[in-house]
């Protein structure tokens, strides 16, 4: 399956992209997706615990299993207000 990934805030600077796509095996998890992205964008791997991950509009943990059609977003801690 091919998962589209959107970057927000300074993650766009770290990766040089607004978005990317990652091709994964069925039943891959968010951690699998992150590992692939860390290979492609090493600067993203520098603070792995500061990466928030949403699937659609909901936060999901690292062991969440991705499904075909999911849209993933990666961003640093939020700073509204």
């Amino acid at each position: 399956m091919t998962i589209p990934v959107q970057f927000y805030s300074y993650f766009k600077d770290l990766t040089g992209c607004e978005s990317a796509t990652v091709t994964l095996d069925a039943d891959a998890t968010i951690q699998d997706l992150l590992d692939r992205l860390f290979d492609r964008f090493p600067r993203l791997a520098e603070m792995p615990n500061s990466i928030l991950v949403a699937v659609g509009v909901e936060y999901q943990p690292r062991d969440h299993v991705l499904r075909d059609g999911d849209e993933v977003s990666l961003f640093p801690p939020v700073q509204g207000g």
Partner: protein
Amino acid sequence: MHRHLTISPDPIDEASLTAERKMSDGMGAAICFSGVVRGSEGADAITAIDYEAFDKMARYQFGLLFDEVEKRWPIESIRLVHRTGVVKVNESSLWVEVIAPHRAEAFEACQFLIDEMKKVVPIWKRAIPE
């Protein structure tokens, strides 16, 4: 509970928002909070903050917070406005109004909403230096 959410680059017109307030006869307290861009971030002077929102997710997460407020307190109305884009020093980036029967509930709900927003609503800022 009445809910009104605006996420937009338009300036926040607090006087108009205040003039449009609606309260039923059972309500005794209204709080408005304005978060305003300060002239410095840490030691550095700035001219503005550029706010970026993941709009669709921000609306969803605000909705979850409003649900939680409604569960915890007998709030009649929440109106919340968050600006996006460049907000100059001395302009409001955030305006929140909470209307409740009593003062303590209004204060608690308003602070809860802002505290939780800062944890979960996907909005980020970038300071624009002098």
